[in-house]
């Protein structure tokens, strides 16, 4: 496993995105997170490790348990960095699609 995980790769995975959604409203233990998935516990642990390494998740010790919560600041950084670029292309492609649909119906 690469030590230096790429943050965009991290959020490209659907399970990891689901984990981020889960912990968005509340801090959860690894066990509680894993209970939401059919995948094996070690697989979920690996996803958690990757998300933590990218600082998308933050850990918090509470008694004997470790709780995970969403690092909103980091989420914001990603959205800030790449989202306008993605949106720009999305807008262009939407336009392309609309224009070509008209083009088709004209024929």
């Amino acid at each position, binding site marked *: 496993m690469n030590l230096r995980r*790429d*943050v*965009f*790769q991290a959020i*490209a995975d659907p399970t990891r995105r689901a984990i*981020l*959604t889960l912990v*968005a*409203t509340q801090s959860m233990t690894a066990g509680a997170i894993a209970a939401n998935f059919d995948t094996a516990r070690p697989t979920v642990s690996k996803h958690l490790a990757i998300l933590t390494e990218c600082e998308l998740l933050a850990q918090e010790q509470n008694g004997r348990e470790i709780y995970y919560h*969403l690092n*909103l600041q980091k*989420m*914001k950084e990603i*959205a*800030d*960095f*790449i*989202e*306008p*670029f*993605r*949106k*720009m*292309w*999305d*807008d*262009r*492609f939407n*336009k*392309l*699609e609309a*224009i*070509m*649909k008209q*083009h*088709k119906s004209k024929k």
Partner: protein
Amino acid sequence: MEQKTKVHAEDGKQDLKITREFDLPLELLFKAYVEPEIIEQWMGTKVLKLESRKHGSYQVETSDGKGNIAFRANGVIHELIPNQKITRTFEMEQTPFGVQLEVYEFEQLTDDTSKLTMHVIYETVAQRDQVLKLPFSFGINMAHNRLEEVLSKIK
């Protein structure tokens, strides 16, 4: 919800991939890339020149609301296989962004849907990151609305 347009840009690399699935037959999608009048409509640029063929070249120009020329870009088409692939260079004139190599792959998904994969390779990592940040500097769209939307979905 799955986003229709995806941008994959790994940290520390000098390329990026943009993918998009269209509710359009493959031929119509490809047409939108080779016919100047159509490009003008969806890109919002004026096409000064476009030779849609192997070793052809192109030049486009964008004006601001007042008719001043905002930027010009040009490039050379290295390869053009109808309904499959376009390989071309792209350069924004009088900017420090250098020349980028663009590989467009067009795929049929069903009779009515198609997919575009755009692979863009920059001269350096720094140039790629500059281009990624461009929409900010041009103020093309307000990231904040979209971001709030994204974050509110998470919350």
